[in-house]
Every structure is written in C-alpha cells, then in structure tokens.
C-alpha cells in the first residue's frame, strides 16, 4: 500500500506545475515577474485582459531570475490584467499616475460679467481628461433653469490642449455673428442684462473617473463687445533696472487667455528673446512678465501678434464681426512692436 501512495503522490507532483514569484513590476511597455521560479519551461503562459478575456499579444523572456513580458502594444491604466501559467494566476494592473477624482480648477474668462457676443471659454481640469463625447455634458442654463440649446458649438473635434487638461468651448459662431442664419433665426445664445450658468458635469478623466461634482460658473451678460483690443491704450509698467521686478502690461479690458499665453514676447535691442515667466492677473486685464535674469539698461520691444484677441474674437486687426474692407491690414497676424526703455 505504501508504494501505491508513493506512486500516486509522484503522479500528482509530476502533473502539477509548480510556480512562484516575489513581486511584479508593471510598466506600460514591460511587466517583470521578479524571482520567477517554475518547474516547467514548457507550459502555457498567457496574459489576458481580465474583464474581456482578450489575449494580450507579446513576448516572454527570462532575464536572470526574472520573467519579463513585453506587450506588443502598451498596457492601459484603465484595464485589469491576469497572468496565467497553467493553474498559477496572478492579477496585475498598470498603476495610475493619479487616483484622485478629476476637478475643474478654473474657467476663463474669469470675470463674472461677460459680453453677449462671447466667442470662447476655456475650462481647466486637475488632470488629463478623455477628449471625446464631452460637449453633451457642458450646458448653458438660463435664469429660469432652462437649458439654452445649441449655444455651444458642437464641433466634431473637441479642442483640447496637448496635456488634455484644458478644453476650449466655442459659442456657436453662426449665432454670435450678426447676419448669419442662426443669428437671425435663433439670436445670440446670451442676452444682455440676464444671468446664465455654465454647468460642467459627468466629464470623465482618462481612467473613466467622473468629475468629483458638477461645476457651475454663473455670470451676468452685458451688451456686445464691439471694441477691438488696441495697443495704443495699453499701459506699460516698466520695471526698475537691475531688478527682477515684473514688466506689466495693463489692457483695461479682458484679453483672451490663450492669446496672452501665446501672442506676446519680449525682445532686447539685439532682437534676442528675453526668457522668463509670465502671469495673467486682474481677470485677464493684466499680463506680467518676470525675467530669468535681471533687467539691464537698454531698449526693449514687446512684440504682439495682431491675432491677439479678446474673448469675443475681436483682435488687434479688427472686429470678429466686421464690415468688408474694415480690417487694419489685409493680412492677419502682423506683428505690432511696442518699445520701452530701462534706464
């Protein structure tokens, strides 16, 4: 009898594939099973998507004591995976860079009084968001709590920045501009002397997590802004020589946030770009610039691309909604140079 038990145990051991490991390191393009030990190198070995049971294509290889899996395509942080070696199974997933629920951190223009011909708003989020299917979840609500339909331009391509943390929304330009059908039939979405609320809800981050809570921006509306930004009325606050004090530009009217971030540069007399940090203050009515090195004595130029616009799309070259032939220059994007001296 003893012999029989011995033989049967031997059979069991022979048939069971033995495997163990210490830990798993998961990266987008490789999974390392540390200190991998197995009594068979001949057994079936797989990685699956755990929920959908989709086989994850890739290659396994031994690296000293480790077993390494190189997937054909990068692993996703949204999925759970399972490593299968005969009876041995181990779940793993690609760690998320951020486990907090996404938040709206800012909405531009930041003022709570906005013109009826407002063209563009920017919504900033605390972390990267999904870039499709969001516009249905951003609504304009009137004073009576009713949704103003068709106010926000439902573009096929949503306008995200490269980090996927800033979404541009456009108020349907066909309604904003006078003379177009939508403007004639529906009118502008925003009406002067009324209050509106922009509601942002249910948007998802790249992991599929929804916004922590609905976000609202209430604002009152004044009549159309038909004054284009004009550099001749800007005030330049000149910093003191040999200081790191900011150079400030006061516009006396709100300028588009992306324009402020991308359309102004500082050069010295030798036409060398001055490096530094820029800040937007005073509800986008002031732009300040702190140089990397102290200001030296000399002549400087502030260059402004004439595409610099206000939130209604009026730019240095003329109004968004303009008569034919009324633009200052046939070509948009000419550079305006403002001189200042540090002495």
């Amino acid at each position, binding site marked *: 009898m003893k012999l029989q038990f011995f*033989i049967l145990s031997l*059979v069991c051991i022979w*048939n069971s594939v033995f495997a163990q490991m210490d830990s798993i390191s998961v990266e987008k393009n490789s999974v390392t099973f540390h200190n991998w030990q197995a009594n068979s190198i*001949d*057994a*079936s070995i797989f*990685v699956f*998507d755990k929920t959908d049971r*989709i*086989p*994850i*294509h890739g*290659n396994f290889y031994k690296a000293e004591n480790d077993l390494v899996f190189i*997937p*054909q*395509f*990068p692993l*996703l942080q*949204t999925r759970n995976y399972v490593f299968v070696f*005969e009876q041995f199974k181990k779940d793993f997933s690609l760690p998320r860079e951020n486990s907090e629920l996404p938040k709206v951190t800012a909405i531009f223009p930041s003022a709570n009084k906005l013109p009826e011909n407002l*063209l*563009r708003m920017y919504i900033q989020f605390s972390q*990267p968001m999904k*870039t499709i299917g969001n516009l249905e979840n951003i609504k304009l609500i009137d004073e009576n709590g009713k949704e103003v339909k068709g106010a926000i*331009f*439902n*573009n*096929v*391509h949503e*306008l*995200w*920045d*490269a980090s*996927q943390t*800033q979404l541009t929304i456009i108020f*349907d*330009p*066909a309604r904003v*501009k006078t*003379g*177009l*059908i*939508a403007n*004639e039939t*529906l009118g502008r979405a925003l009406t002067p002397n009324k209050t509106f609320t922009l509601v942002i809800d249910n948007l998802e981050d*790249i992991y599929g997590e929804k916004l922590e809570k609905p976000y609202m921006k209430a604002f009152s509306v004044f009549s159309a802004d038909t004054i284009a930004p004009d550099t001749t009325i800007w005030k330049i606050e000149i910093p003191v020589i040999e200081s790191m004090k900011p150079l400030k530009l006061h516009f006396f009217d709100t300028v588009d946030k*992306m*324009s402020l*971030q*991308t359309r102004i540069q500082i050069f010295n007399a030798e036409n060398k*770009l001055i*490096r530094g940090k*820029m800040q937007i203050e005073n509800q986008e009515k002031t732009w300040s610039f702190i140089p990397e090195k102290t200001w030296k004595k000399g002549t400087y130029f502030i260059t402004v691309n004439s595409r610099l616009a206000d939130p209604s799309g009026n730019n240095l070259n003329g109004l*968004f*909604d303009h*008569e*034919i032939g009324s633009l200052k220059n*046939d*070509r*948009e994007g000419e550079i305006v140079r403002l001189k200042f001296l540090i002495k």
Partner: protein
Amino acid sequence: MKTIKNLSIILLAVLCMYSCKAQQNVMKKGASSEALVTTNSLQTLLPGASVMTFGPNNVLFVGDSKAGVIYAIETQAKVLKDPISFNLKGVDRIIAKKLGVSTSDLIFNDMQIHPVSQEAYIAVQRGFAPDAPAVIVAVSPADSNVRLIDLSKKTQVQVKNIRTDAFEIYKRPSSRLNITDIDYHDGYIYVAGLTNGEFASTLRKIAYPFSNKQETVSGIEMYHAVHLQKETRAPIRTMAFEEINGESTLIAAYTCTPLVSIPTSEIKEGNHVKAKTIAELGYGNTPIDMITFTAQEQDGSFDKKLLIINKERSASLISLKDFAEANKGKGLEGFSMGPEGVKIFPVPMSGTMQVAEQNQMMLTTLQRNIDSGSVDLLSELKGAYFRLSNFDSEYEFPDYKYTEGGKVWKDFHNMVKPMEGFPELIKEK
C-alpha cells in the same frame, strides 16, 4: 497477485502522466499561436492619426494633430478590381481584440479606401491618455481580414505656425492645431484645421515630396463674404478639389456651414483670397466629411457628385453640374434661411462617421449603429445611399407580390441582397 496490482497501478500512473503531459502540450500548441505572438518588427504605432488621404503612388498621408505632423506612408497593396462589398458589423470588436483592448478604449478618427486594393484604411487611437498612440488598420473587402499597417517606410513634415517653439522657451502651454481635413492636389497637401486658441481662417499648403525648405509651407489667409457684406474669420472644416467650369477649384465647407468655392490658383502665400459662397448647408449642423465621385444616374448617364456627411443633418448630395452652374454667378449674398444656393438632395446616411468612394458601384461607410452601439464597416450602392437590410419593409412579407410596375424594384432588391450578405433572400424572378 499483490505484485500484479502494484504493477497495474504503476502502469496506470505512467499512462496518466503521459496522457496529462500530452494534453498539456496540445493545449500549449493550440493556444500559443494566440498568446505567444512574436512581437513583429513592423512599426505600427504613430503618436496620433487624426485625418488621412491617399496621394500619388498609393502614398497615404496622415495628419497628426497631437504631434502637428503630416506623415507620408508608403503602402503595399494587391489589386482588387471586383466590386466586393463590406458587410462587417462590429469591426470595432475585431480591431479591439487585435490591439488587446476593449472597444470602449478605441477612438475612430478617419477611414479612407486604398485606390488599388479597395481596402478600408481606418485610423484608430488606442486609449485616452495624452500619449495614447494611434494605429492604422486595413480591412480587405475580399476576406474581411484586419491587418495592421506597417508604418516604417514614411517621411514626415512638421506643420508650421503651430507656434510651439516660442512657448517651450517660456514653458507655456501652446496652442494646438486640430487638423480637420487634409487633401492632396497637384504636388501639394492642403491642411485645414482649427486651433484651440483662436478662430482663424488659415489653410496650410505643403509641397510633397516634403522638402526642408520652410518657404514651401505657406500660411494662407482667406475670408468669405457672408450676408450683409460682413466678413468672418472662420476655419474650413472639410474640403475637396475638383475641376469646375474648366478651372481647378477648392470646394470647402466651413464650420458654420457655408459651402464655398475658391480657385486653386489663388491659394498662395500672402494672397487675400475671397471665397464665393455657393450654398448654405443649414445652421445647427457640423459637416464631418466631404467626397466627390462619379455615379450612374437612373437613365444610365454618369454624373459627378459632391457628398457631404453632416453630424446633425442628413447627408447632402449635390450634382457638380449644379455646383458649376451656381459658381458662374456671384454666389449667395443676401440673407438666407438655408439650405439653399444650389440643389441639395438629402440622403439618409445618419450615423455615418466616415465615407469614402470604394469602386465604380459603391461607397464605403464607417457607421455607428444606433441600436447596438457597434461600429460597422458597410458598403452602400451609389445612387441608393442606404442599405436595404437596415429596414423591415413590406417587400419582405411572405405574401408580398411585386406589381407589374414594381419589377424594377424587385430587380434592384435582388441585386442588393447578396451585396449586403443576404443571398438567401433573393426572390424568384
């Protein structure tokens, strides 16, 4: 006796061991082809793939909004001349499995038909993260096989004026160009797009083959006269090149729906181009895609068509003869309720995400099925612009009899049914 018993147990054990190991080996062989795929040396990933178009010598141009780059990819293809239709429902599931993800992790960006092989080239983003890559898959109508396109043989060019350089110095977030359409015409790639920072009417023109000379990439300003003599700064959404009244012409649909014509010769750097508004496609709508193709009319004659797929409205079909006639005039100037300006025939292609001409008989569509939510790759007959199998019609009732005058419909239905994958439903002649 005891020895025999022990021997039989040993024999049983050995047999058991052998059979188990044999089974494991079978399992391994059976499954390994799926799980242990050797990572192929093909380069199949792009940083992004937003829009595509085929150019000369079967080169595939891909516009990547993420990197602000246009790629020119050499493609290999076998000639397919027969008009074989696509009937691939749930192509999203097949692609997802191929890429090791769920269908909810895919973003379908564009679809074009290879001019030689009739394969559908589909640009797909895999995942949602800012660095999520894109792949191009090709699906053949002959066998519905889905393969990943080798992207190793390619040239590329950075689209100028995206203004990334200066901002890196300042560490500022840069504005980004969303490339909404690209087209190849007579040695140039034309790039239309919309930035997240402003509403500008800039069309970019890039010489191909790509050269290092920066001058070859020119920014083109244009405007279109709209009602009440006002101008607008507006970006082109989708476009196509055609010869209209003997002149090479860019036909463009704007985001706020005017359909305009611009002589190609006027699209030069520094030129202030005045576009002629030919039609108003109707407000509250976004044009998605635009193609031109030749279709046979019911009387047997051939006519060149312009088809515009819309996001909110039914697709707009326009005869280029009518377009050319309208182009002779001053264009649409007064206040218009739209759609008007040129005869627009609405066709029932809602749910269509992308459309391309497949062959002389068919268009290929990438459609989102409203009921199942799946993405389907389906061919539609030119002239019909719908799929018979999408409808439950009285024609399919067992007791339905075609009338004498309805014979033409019977012939049409019998022709379409096998094309849509239902040869068994053909009714006797």
